[in-house]
């Protein structure tokens, strides 16, 4: 069984989806950053799983804590004396990943792949039921937003029949 989408197709999907979330929700322009130095400092990681009838996907957003702090301030900065707690930063990254995943899900549907999203989880996780003997098609994209850089990865693989 072959993977449903090529790496190039996944990169194109990510390249459309990630900037839209930053522009719409954070009012920030982001740039592709192909020469990003990894690993990112103090990373915050969120994973959203997508389960379809013939394939499954995992989407992982990794942002340095400083970037998550800036995103939280942009989203919630006008909330009086609100100071985000540690778990709040994980939640911000989870929600941004959820939004990107929603946009990706729309694009997957346009490729004939229908499925449902799962709630975001902190960390890099592989939800139960999606384990596969197939090597997933992996797409890792790198981005810069002002003073911070981040990555978004999109992995898709056919389901075990």
């Amino acid at each position, binding site marked *: 069984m072959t993977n449903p989408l090529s790496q190039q197709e996944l990169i194109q999907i990510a390249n459309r989806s990630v900037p839209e979330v930053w522009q719409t929700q954070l009012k920030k322009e982001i740039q592709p950053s192909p020469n990003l130095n990894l690993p990112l400092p103090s990373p915050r990681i969120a994973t959203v799983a997508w389960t379809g009838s013939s394939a499954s996907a995992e989407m992982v957003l990794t942002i340095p804590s400083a970037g998550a702090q800036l995103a939280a301030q942009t989203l919630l900065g006008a909330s009086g004396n609100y100071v985000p707690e540690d778990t709040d930063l994980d939640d911000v990254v989870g*929600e941004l990943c959820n939004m990107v995943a*929603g946009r990706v899900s729309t694009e997957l*549907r346009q490729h004939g792949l229908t499925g449902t*999203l799962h709630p975001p989880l902190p960390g890099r996780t592989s939800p139960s039921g999606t384990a596969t003997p197939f090597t997933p098609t992996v797409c890792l994209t790198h981005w810069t937003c002002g003073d911070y850089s981040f990555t978004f990865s999109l992995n898709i693989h056919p389901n075990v029949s």
Partner: protein
Amino acid sequence: MNQKILSIDDSKTIRLLLARMFRPFQVELREAGNGEEGLAQAREVRPDLIILDYNMPVMDGVTMLQHLRHDPQLKSIPVIMLTAESNPKIISTVARLGVRDYIVKPFQEQPLIAKVSKIIPLQPQVPASS
């Protein structure tokens, strides 16, 4: 009198964002982190409007909405979906359940406020007298 809005989303970020958005208005915003908590809040508060996520642990938005519509005391409460999920089957399901609007995340604040104001009156907060 303040309008009561119940925000049901597993993301604290979204709940805080909505709280910030509606702070300029005479709105009492209540929060719940999943559909089950949301139902309990709805029974207690009887909100004028519910803003509901779909993907949530414990009880998702569609299940919560089905419970809401089967409760004679709650079934007429207007609901706006605010979710990253844009699956046409889910949109069709919640449309049949009488959802008033469906907003896909990421979202812009002003259009959401405009859609809310078509359902409930949003009066500006009265500045505190010095």
